[in-house]
């Protein structure tokens, strides 16, 4: 009888310890992360001017329509961050203008259960399909960014992510169809809460991508 009591005591005890196993994130904001990586061989002093397209490319689940409501706001934020670091923005208006030394692309993923590791996302989705860049060759099907770090990681975009890629304007790109990525910033978070709170969190996380990349500063 006593042994039985002791045994049930152990059981109760273990139960108690398991049931109060400590917590973790309590709210969505605490799930936000800013992830950055860069080409360790790149000489960032070589890059002084940049441009960026006026839209965000969305990768969304089938049947969903991307919402471009916040494109201007996010693009402006990205642009501001680069100018604050000391880079000069060039408006893509005419071919006569000076060619920028890098361009910045902004992509957004939402509710896409997709892993970088198994297949490259741009092969699957088409990457900036047919985007006509006035200074260079048209990025058509089969084109994609080439990340110097391997593999572009295993992020799963089952939440919402904004990926900012800093891409060198490289003449060799037209033959290889790969554009070299110098720096990547990913703002990743759960798409929960009001639109405004999501966008606020995204902006904080985008800013953080730049804060944690001091090598970009001029």
């Amino acid at each position, binding site marked *: 009888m*006593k*042994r039985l009591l002791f045994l049930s*005591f*152990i*059981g109760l005890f*273990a139960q108690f310890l398991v049931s109060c*196993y400590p917590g973790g994130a309590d709210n969505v904001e605490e799930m936000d*992360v800013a992830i*950055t990586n860069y080409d360790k061989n790149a000489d960032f002093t070589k890059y002084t001017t940049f441009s960026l397209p006026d839209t965000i490319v969305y990768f969304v689940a089938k049947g969903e329509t991307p919402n471009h409501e916040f494109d201007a706001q996010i693009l402006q934020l990205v642009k501001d961050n680069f100018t604050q670091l000391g880079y000069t923005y060039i408006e893509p208006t005419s071919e006569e203008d000076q060619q920028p030394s890098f361009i910045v692309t902004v992509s957004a993923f939402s509710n896409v259960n997709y892993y970088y590791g198994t297949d490259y996302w741009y092969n699957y989705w088409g990457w900036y399909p047919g985007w006509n860049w006035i200074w260079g060759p048209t990025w058509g099907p089969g084109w994609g960014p080439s990340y110097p*770090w391997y593999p572009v990681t295993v992020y799963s975009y089952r939440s919402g992510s904004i990926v900012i890629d800093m891409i060198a304007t490289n003449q060799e790109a037209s033959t290889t169809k790969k554009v070299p990525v110098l720096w990547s910033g990913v703002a990743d978070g759960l798409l929960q809460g009001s639109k405004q709170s999501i966008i606020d969190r995204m902006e904080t996380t985008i800013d953080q991508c730049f804060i944690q990349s001091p090598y970009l500063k001029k």
Partner: protein
Amino acid sequence: MRKLLIISLILFGLSPLVKGQMLNLNYQMSVPIGKMNDYAGKMSFRGMDLEYHHFLNEKFSIGGMIGWNTFYKDKGKLTGDFRFKGSKDIHTITGYQYRYINTVPIMVMGRYWLTDQNTMFRPYLGLGLGTSWTELKTDLGQFSATNARWQFAFAPEIGTIIPVNDQFAFNIGAKYTYGTKSGSVEAMQNFTISVGIVLMGN
């Protein structure tokens, strides 16, 4: 947990066969020290161990123990360098970090008892020797990084049992545990207070 139960069942099964033994279940509170304190420096109120002691004579006993302690610390927003599985590249990630340490020490124990069996308090000095499975886990956004290793471990202890009758007693003890650095898991140190119940067979 099932393993624990099986071990305790075996110990119980043996108990009628052997004289001069005790079985001890403890609740434990622990403070991480050193590198473990850097990792998740917060007192833990989640711990237990199960001990068995067999008396060689009035003054000496040998036995064994298995335990479990969980440490947890909310580190807040931090920037750190991480490697993704299968990649050598370092990514910088900023986010809220939640860190856990789980340790499962399994040791052989020797004890020296300062008094004979008939005193009100029966203080002891002991030393445990064995291994500790130590797992460090960091949760960050949707990501989780886990490092786990078996460490060589030892644990000197001091304490006393307080017999209620010749079959039942309480135990109060203090213990220092050290697990050697193993691979990427740093040396584990903690200080533990144990409070528990003892079943004795004479």
